């Protein structure tokens, strides 16, 4: 077993509830079965214990973290601990007064998701009318003096409008723009046939993003994240399992990533029963893929094993059936053919409608 390194970032998933129904949501498919189990005092303790362990940043996310009426109390606790405090939100439901309150409590950064540069297209992905309010929220964020991050998830339908997305972020005076291609896990995997772009589309978008990054240097940070399906080697998922990120799910599990509790056979302790410190060091689920001991070939003898840590465990499980396999996104994986086949499929136009994120997935609603 590998010794527990120091975590830097706490991802606090305050709830899985969300007014939006995004077709690539990163929450588990069975999110509706998982209840919000942590009370305000539990979350405040989690923040204190995480800080003692070395955490310096907290991302309040979900679901939609604004749905927690105790968000203010948690921001206050985070700032009392001098944590860099980031709210990751859809902007719904939010009124300006609440944002002002969060500003006074010391919230450091607000990240607003925008699904597309155009209203109808954005609302189609979100599965509800949200676009206009998101723009209002983004403007309030800047008016109140917050730094603004705009996050847009990219996929086949909106990649060709990446220039419009960049222009919109500029118009909103965003400090940071995340152009993050969907990663095909959870709801996005369910909708992969309708979302996965082809290589040429990715390449064109990448060059537009690169030009914008250069042009906007020093003013707006532009981040472009390629989908794992279109790389030669996978990125270091979560910077390595149980290494820099500590995720606490709405049901109280201490996880290495957003979906680890959907992997079979792993047990993750609950912060209601044990301290963050104890779980970080000795949870069997965290120990399972920490370090290099678990690695199969070709990872075990690969020079990149300390760079990508074997890639994404969830992707390995969902594509091969084994969470301990080399990430099939890697061109060296014996299962890479699975990704190549999906990529080849992406070259053909889809005949598939979306499955919207919902408590009980209802497929094929043509909107």
């Amino acid at each position: 077993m590998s010794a527990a390194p120091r975590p830097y970032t706490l991802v606090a998933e305050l709830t899985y509830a969300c007014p939006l129904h995004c077709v690539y949501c990163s929450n588990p498919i069975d999110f509706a079965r998982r209840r919000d189990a942590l009370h305000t005092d539990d979350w405040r303790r989690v923040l204190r214990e995480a800080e003692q362990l070395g955490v310096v940043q907290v991302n309040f996310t979900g679901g939609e973290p604004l749905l927690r009426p105790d968000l203010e109390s948690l921001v206050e606790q985070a700032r009392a601990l001098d944590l860099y405090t980031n709210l990751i939100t859809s902007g719904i439901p939010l009124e300006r007064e609440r944002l002002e309150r969060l500003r006074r409590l010391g919230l450091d950064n607000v990240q607003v998701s925008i699904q597309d540069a155009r209203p109808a297209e954005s609302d189609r992905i979100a599965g509800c009318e949200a676009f206009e309010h998101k723009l209002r929220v983004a403007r309030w964020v800047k008016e109140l003096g917050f730094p603004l991050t705009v996050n847009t998830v990219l996929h086949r339908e909106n990649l060709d409008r990446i220039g419009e997305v960049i222009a919109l972020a500029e118009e909103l005076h965003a400090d940071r723009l995340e152009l993050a291609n969907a990663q095909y896990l959870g709801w996005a995997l369910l909708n992969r046939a309708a979302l996965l772009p082809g290589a040429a589309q990715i390449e064109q978008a990448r060059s537009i993003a690169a030009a914008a990054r250069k042009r906007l240097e020093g003013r707006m940070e532009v981040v472009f994240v390629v989908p794992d399906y279109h790389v030669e080697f996978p990125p270091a998922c979560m910077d390595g399992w149980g290494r820099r990120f500590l995720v606490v799910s709405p049901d109280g599990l201490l996880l290495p990533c957003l979906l680890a509790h959907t992997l079979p056979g792993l047990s993750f302790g609950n912060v209601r029963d044990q301290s963050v410190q104890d779980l970080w060091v000795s949870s069997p689920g965290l120990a399972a893929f920490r370090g290099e001991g678990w690695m199969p070939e070709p990872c075990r003898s690969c020079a990149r094993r300390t760079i990508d840590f074997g890639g994404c465990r969830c992707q390995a499980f969902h594509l091969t059936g084994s969470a301990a396999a080399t990430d099939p996104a890697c061109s060296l994986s014996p299962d890479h053919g699975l990704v190549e086949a999906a990529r080849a499929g992406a070259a053909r136009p889809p005949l598939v409608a979306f499955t919207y994120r919902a408590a009980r997935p209802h497929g094929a609603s043509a909107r």
Partner: protein
Amino acid sequence: MIAPAARPALAAKARLRFDHASGGYMLLYPERGLALNPTAASILKLCNGELTVDAIVEQLQREYAERPAPELRKDVLDFLEEMSRRGLLQVAG
């Protein structure tokens, strides 16, 4: 090039934080953080939007008296330039 009369300040998104674990300072911003060496931390602590680059260099010369002045000045300017390029520093004239 940063003007000697410019008054650098940390960007709105960036915040300095003392790190108990390492005993040094970190510069935190969305999704990222930089572990600063003592010199970098000394420089950024002076970037308050009031002191000019000249005044910052002058203060640092007192703190790092053993360093030749032109060398220190160049290091400070290079560092400020780099931070500004990364969008972590605002350099108002």
